[in-house]
């Protein structure tokens, strides 16, 4: 089917969705997801879940330690 196996796709799926893989690996995974009846729906589910989380949590305050750090970085600019 394609040069990448399901196990590999499952392991790399989040990195793929985060667009953090090199172009070649990314292309192989994209192709696999298009053809594989196990991994395709898995990807679809993760996309929808991520979208729900994004919609429902927009505006969630960052942890205080992170806010402090960001403020310090801005002051250093």
């Amino acid at each position: 089917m394609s040069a990448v196996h399901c196990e590999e796709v499952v392991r790399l799926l989040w990195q793929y969705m985060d667009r953090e893989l090199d172009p070649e690996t990314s292309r192989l995974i994209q192709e696999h997801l298009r053809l594989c009846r196990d991994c395709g729906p898995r990807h679809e589910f993760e996309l929808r879940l991520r979208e729900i989380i994004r919609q429902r949590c927009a505006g969630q305050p960052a942890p205080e330690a992170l806010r402090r750090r960001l403020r310090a970085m801005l002051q250093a600019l």
Partner: protein
Amino acid sequence: MMNAYVDAYRRADREPEVVDQEDVEEQYLYSRVRASEELRRQGNPEEVVLQAIMDADVEAALASLPDAFRAAVILADLEGFTYKEIARILDVPLGTVMSRLFRGRRLLQRALWEYALRTRQLPPGEGGEGR
């Protein structure tokens, strides 16, 4: 009394950090959904669970994560920063960003799955323990 406390403390200190199997599994929630007999009986398992999650207090689930994991999830999934940007923002190595982000996502998925189990009256342990 005091000795017992110290012993317990030392023991905890010696034991390697326990990593349960569920904690290293990618796409925790999807694996549970696929393994659930009861969800299949209720129709399309993915739809049933996503519907349950839409009704869930997702914000509270995210807020329940330990700060380090929550920060990684917020920066990546809500704010769309790259791993490299997050590494700079948090001042940690790239590998740390990835492990915090993935662990944070799994913890969040686990919290959402537990919510779905409660609201859809699925038997505890449904979807299999670990593995």
